[in-house]
């Protein structure tokens, strides 16, 4: 204990070290605040939409309920869906800044509505978010390097190393407390702002614990790497250079190359083709006999087969049927697209198993439910809700039931499901494994040098 206190006092006496700690603390605090601000902005937008949407539906109700035409009701009424940020989203915004978290859909073809973009300033999205995950993954290792690269070499260069080691006897008694104090300091400057943020956001305790475990595991990796590199008796600057190269490789270069490789191995052209296919399928219906469309529709919806046959005149049920058939025709591409997004995510996870920075990044986003999988889950919820909408309107359309004021109130309502987040076990395992691997290599090399 005394050794720790002595080390802490020694550390506080080093101006550059204190400056680095303060800087990292400030960066983390800014990142946490920026995350909280962004989450509050998204929550405010979701809250603002409620009343606006209600008055929009009220206005449509007013004129539709005069003619009571279910087709007009289904055609003109949009239904709002939303994907509220989780209690941990502030720490890892993920793709929430480039994909919509509020979307309105109507009972028409879904594939033409599901991928609508959000009005965002692309130049503002370009540099990427400054959130807790970013500070941890990209900046914290740099500070680890600054604090640990010259542990031994610094003392040696100052000519104190032999005296120091002689004075304490065992070298572990000297380096143990020194490492512990510095590691603890780094952990605290990262954890404290995060804990304040978690308290403000009301984050579930298990998630807070999980984030702290991730932080510890990631810091441990970098500290072990620093110690291993620092054992080699080279100059402080050479150590710093080696570690900086490791940082660039592990946090910038490997992920960037991985991104290029994954995206070219799993090209997602379905997006653009999807739009064209769906549009062509839908509009073809105007040029083919109505019976052809209805037969295709009845194959998936046999329950409406025996309703009143179509006449010569336009009927909404035909119109909605061909939208449904269009969706079904584009369904293959749509599934491929969904699958492709998830597959890209799965491959980046595999990359994470050998790249601690990637694993940490993905682990935090998994916990915060802000990753591509969460975006797909939101699309799936919209899909399910859209199915409900169709099932709600079809009886009115196919049985020619009038659609009155009271029916508007009966329409299904989207219930936002809070994104749960889950323990990123495999990813965390990857970080621990890589730490053990680096530590093991260090030990083996150390023994070889000693013998």
């Amino acid at each position, binding site marked *: 204990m005394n050794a720790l206190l002595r080390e802490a006092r020694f550390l506080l006496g080093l101006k550059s070290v204190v400056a680095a700690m303060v800087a990292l603390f400030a960066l983390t605090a800014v990142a946490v605040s920026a995350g909280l601000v962004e989450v509050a902005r998204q929550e405010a937008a979701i809250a603002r939409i409620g009343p606006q949407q209600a008055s929009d539906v009220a206005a449509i109700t007013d004129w539709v309920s005069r003619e009571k035409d279910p087709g007009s009701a289904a055609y003109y009424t949009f239904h709002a869906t939303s994907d509220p940020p989780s209690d941990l989203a502030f720490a890892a915004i993920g793709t929430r800044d480039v994909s919509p978290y509020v979307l309105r859909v109507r009972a028409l073809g879904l594939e033409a509505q599901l991928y609508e973009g959000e009005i965002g300033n692309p130049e503002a*999205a370009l540099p990427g978010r400054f959130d807790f995950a970013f500070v941890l993954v990209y900046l914290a290792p740099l500070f680890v390097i600054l604090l640990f690269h010259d542990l031994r070499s610094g003392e040696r260069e100052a000519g104190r190393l032999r005296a120091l080691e002689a004075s304490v006897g065992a070298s572990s008694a000297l380096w143990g407390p020194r490492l512990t104090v510095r590691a603890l300091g780094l952990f605290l400057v990262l954890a404290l702002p995060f804990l304040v943020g978690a308290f403000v956001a009301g984050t579930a305790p298990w998630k807070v614990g999980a984030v702290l475990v991730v932080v510890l595991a990631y810091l441990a990796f970098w500290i072990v790497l620093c110690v291993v590199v620092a054992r080699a008796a080279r100059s402080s600057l050479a150590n710093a250079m080696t570690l900086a190269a490791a940082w660039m490789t592990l946090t910038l270069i490997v992920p960037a190359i991985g991104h290029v490789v994954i995206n070219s191995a799993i090209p997602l052209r379905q997006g653009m083709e999807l739009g064209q296919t769906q549009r062509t399928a839908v509009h073809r219906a105007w040029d083919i006999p109505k019976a052809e469309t209805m037969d295709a529709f009845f194959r998936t919806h046999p329950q409406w087969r025996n309703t009143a046959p179509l006449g010569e005149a336009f009927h909404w049920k035909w119109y909605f049927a061909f939208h449904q058939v269009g969706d079904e025709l584009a369904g293959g591409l749509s599934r491929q697209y969904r699958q492709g997004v998830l597959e890209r995510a799965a491959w980046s996870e595999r990359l994470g198993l050998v790249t601690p920075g990637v694993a940490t990044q993905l682990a935090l986003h998994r916990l915060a439910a802000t990753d591509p999988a969460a975006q797909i889950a939101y699309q799936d919820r919209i899909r399910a809700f859209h199915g409900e909408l169709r099932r709600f309107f079809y009886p009115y359309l196919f049985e020619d039931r009038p659609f009155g004021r009271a029916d508007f109130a009966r329409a299904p309502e989207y219930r936002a499901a809070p994104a749960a987040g889950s323990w990123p076990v495999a990813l965390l395992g990857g970080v621990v494994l890589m730490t053990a691997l680096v530590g093991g290599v260090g030990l083996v090399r150390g023994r070889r040098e000693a013998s």
Partner: protein
Amino acid sequence: MSVILSVTRNELRHLVRSRVALTGLILVALLTFAAALTSNAYQADQAGLRERLQHAADQDFAAQPNRHPHRVVHFGHFAIRPASGLAAMDPGVEAYTGNMIFLEGHRQNSANFGDARQSSLLVRFGQLSPALVLQVIVPLLLVFIGAGMIAGERERGTLRQSLLAGISGGALLSGKALALGLAALAIATPAFGLLLWLGASGGARLSAVGLTTLGYVAYLAFWTLLIIAVSATANRSRSALIGLVGAWAFMVVLVPRVAPEAAAALAPLPTRVETDIAVQRDLRSMGDSHNPNDPYFAAFKQKTLKQYGVTRVEDLPVNYRGLLAIEGEKLTSSLFDRYADQAFGAMEAQGRVMDALAVVSPTVAIRRVSMTLAETDLFAYRRFLEQAEAYRYDLVQRLNRLQATAVTAADDAAKSKNAAAEARSRISADHWQAMPHFDPKRPSAADVVSRALPALVALLLWLAAGALFAVHAGRRLNRRAA
């Protein structure tokens, strides 16, 4: 001069001898090369894909059968954004905007399927492009190589010897700066090679190639001078390193990333849903062409009857429904334009806030210079959207005019109840085949350059500040030696 060169030669010899530094240099040079290669290949692939898709869309549009013109309005068309000249150097906002937009009547759609949305979370630091390497990675590598160049000599005591031997602080500093600058140039060579190639192969304008090169040279020269000056000022190489990494974290990482937060707070953007709801509300208050009792359209009807000198819609020489469609599209489009202008106005206000932060970070300035000259900035994207919108409006109005002139009012009115009338309301497919193709124009070279100029000036000012700092640090070295 020969003193400076001999310092440079010595320093370069050190650099080559220090395996770590040399490995770092080679690593990043290879990275720059890989970035240039993959970025160029990706852009070429994209350019091909876009051309094919636009061609397929044009074919689909022309291949429509005989139809009622309003069906074609809803069939719509696709506009695909052509690749710009220097996108391989700096893809800018392309990953965020998407490149394909669906054009249809009564609606203004956004470009969908941006890459950022459908990619994993691997590159939250930025896509691998020559621009990212030069803006972010190269300065950091230079920091690690250069932080100890003078401070290290001070620690070892060789600095004093050199100064006592009569080498002036200025010469020493210049020599070291030259060595570090040469290292920077070596790393940047593949990127500059790509720039030249893009210029020579005709995709990019020479003015853009020249000014982009100038911008990056100024940016890297600033970092070189800053690093050497800090190294000369610091007592220990560790302090120099911590100070410079701090400066890098602040200028390269923190400011560009926090700038959008500040901008969003000052000029907030509405969500698409809110805009849609507002547009619908305004449309309702404007009038409903489907409602025969609507006051706006009742007045429009009176005006039209008077213009043609008849008393009943049935007596008009043209199909009144077509005229209504033309008028309706005019109203909705002006509304869309108003909201789009508002949104872009807010985005540009945000852009001005972010650009202003070039005062505290040269990275903000080089980003603007690079992206603007590559025509991958917000302005270029807006230009594409506006041209697509103009094309959409023209297309829809041509079709509406066809509805007014080529479809009789009687058939138009009876088409949803009577199959024979429906068949007569279809007009020849020749009409769609004769429609103009979407052909977006690039902004003029002068326009692009004038947009990049303020940031370029800011960058040169940073370079001047770096030079002043270096001169000051050189004089201090002399004073200390004396």
